[in-house]
């Protein structure tokens, strides 16, 4: 035990003395959370739009007031005629223009064929789509209210509810993803590099000649990264709750347990990489290509797994991040309890045990 503590202490010194490691450990999670949370968001908030009101009657004024009142849109310009529409977009003033046809009120109340045109800047198709959807929702909402007032006998009320994320916030998606990315990076990459480094500089041989049991060496190497990851989990959760306003709906205990489970899985992945990588650069490359990329591409964090081609969907099943991402989303955002996520938890646990067995075997083999 004493030997073990000496080893852990030494590992901490390595971590604390290396500025790059410290950066990856502490600055990166915070930066990623903030960048993904604020800058890289596709949510709509105070988007600048324009209005081309050809009708100028009571109904059009009501509709415009509704658009104005929503927190999604800011009306920054009134376009005076159709010819000037494109010029407004060219100047980049607005992303969307709502065009109200002449005699809007008349057609709305009497001819029953009112049409509103939405013109969106589709240079960024996703944003254009989202904006159009939001505007449509507001217009539908207005129409609904009118119908209720007029007590029309036949009308279908459609009500749209965005479950679990009513404000359609991007950060709901990013927080679990960033967590998976950071833990992969810290645990798997840093651990594999630190083990390979000992082999590269020759200290591993000296340690293996010494009486310390190799298994303890491995555990001692993991302890600091495990503890630092626990710190990272805490800081990410705190940031998401207090800075990004992403609440933790489910049980905190369950959430943290799943995070720690994933952390240990990632540590074993790092150990496995260290047994195949000949140098620190190769360890880093394998970690980035083999772990980091799948975490981003195949976990469902950037692209929904259901939309992928079938072969990729199959491959995504062996990516631990996919399961972790699912678990965090289910527990943190949906508030599901253990009875709903035990299957996924079991899969992750299975992966952990498998990786442990394989990597310990491979590691022992290297000593011969």
């Amino acid at each position: 035990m004493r030997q073990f503590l000496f080893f852990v202490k030494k590992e901490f010194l390595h971590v604390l003395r290396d500025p790059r490691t410290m950066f990856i450990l502490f600055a990166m999670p915070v930066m990623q959370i903030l960048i993904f949370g604020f800058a890289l968001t596709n949510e709509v908030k105070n988007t600048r739009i324009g209005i081309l009101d050809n009708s100028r009657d009571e109904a059009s004024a009501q509709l415009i007031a509704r658009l104005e009142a929503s927190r999604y849109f800011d009306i920054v310009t009134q376009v005076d005629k159709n010819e000037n529409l494109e010029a407004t977009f060219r100047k980049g003033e607005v992303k969307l223009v709502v065009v109200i046809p002449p005699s809007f009120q008349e057609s709305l109340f009497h001819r029953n064929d009112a049409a509103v045109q939405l013109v969106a800047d589709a240079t960024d198709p996703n944003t254009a789509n989202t904006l159009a959807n939001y505007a449509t929702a507001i217009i539908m909402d207005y129409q609904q209210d009118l119908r209720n007032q007029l007590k029309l006998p036949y009308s279908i009320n459609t009500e749209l509810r965005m479950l679990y994320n009513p404000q359609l916030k991007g950060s709901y998606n990013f927080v679990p993803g960033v967590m998976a990315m950071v833990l992969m990076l810290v645990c798997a990459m840093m651990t594999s590099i630190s083990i390979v480094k000992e082999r590269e500089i020759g200290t591993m041989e000296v340690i293996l000649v010494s009486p310390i049991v190799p298994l303890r060496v491995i555990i001692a190497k993991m302890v600091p990264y495990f503890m630092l990851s626990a710190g990272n989990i805490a800081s990410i959760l705190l940031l998401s709750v207090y800075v990004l306003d992403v609440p933790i709906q489910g049980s905190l205990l369950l959430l943290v347990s799943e995070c720690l489970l994933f952390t240990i899985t990632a540590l074993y992945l790092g150990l496995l990489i260290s047994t195949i990588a000949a140098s620190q650069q190769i360890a880093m490359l394998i970690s980035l290509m083999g772990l980091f990329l799948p975490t981003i591409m195949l976990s469902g964090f950037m692209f929904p797994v259901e939309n992928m081609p079938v072969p990729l969907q199959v491959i995504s099943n062996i990516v631990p991040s996919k399961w972790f991402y699912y678990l965090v989303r289910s527990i943190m955002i949906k508030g599901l309890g253990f009875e709903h996520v035990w299957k996924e938890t079991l899969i992750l646990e299975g992966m952990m045990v498998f990786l442990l067995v394989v990597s310990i075997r491979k590691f022992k083999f290297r000593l011969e």
Partner: protein
Amino acid sequence: MNPKAISVEALTKRFGSFTAVDAITFDVAQGEIFGFLGANGAGKTTAMRMLCGLSFPTSGKATVAGFDLYKQAEKIKQRIGYMSQKFSLYEDLTVRENIRFYGGIYGLSDAAIKAKTQDMLTGLHMQSEANTLVRSLPLGWRQKLSFSVSLVHDPNIVFLDEPTGGVDPITRREFWMLIYEAAHRGTTVFVTTHYMDEAEYCNRVSIMVDGRVDALGSPQELKTRFSAEDMGEVFLKLARKAQRGDE
């Protein structure tokens, strides 16, 4: 108590069809400085790795510090020190932290580590460098420190794998002074080297060619037997018959 520090009988290591070490047999006496020579690829590193417990022998018998290589590996580990070909200290730790760490993994008490640190720093005249990162020490100092650290737990035997590679002649001489001191205190020194002048400093040397020990004796004996001027000539006469090239 076995007066022999190391006793090896028909020790063999095969990697597939390749026999790296071919039934070598020799003894090393307690307190002896034993030079283990051979060209690159002759099998000396593999042989040494087996004696240190880093590699498992294919067949043959061996005892190290009186313990069986197969059955008592853990006891052997407590009693041997090892300095690898590569540099075996942590560059991002200070001199004191390195000593502490290696003392710690050999199970020394805090008091013993303290005393050892003092001894070592005084012996190496490095008191003022105790809190310097090893990275910023000159190579020669690091090498000497590395040797002292391999002796931190007062081992019976210390294995040195080409300890003076890339070191200037003056430092090499100083390094050998340290080896003599250790031998004088009763530590058996098992050293591989490529420098033939260093072979002259050993009590006895063995020369490996193609996985076998082709010559064994004191430098004086070998020079007489091969009617050579110095150890370099002895080595060349033996190594020329080698079938294997470089690794």
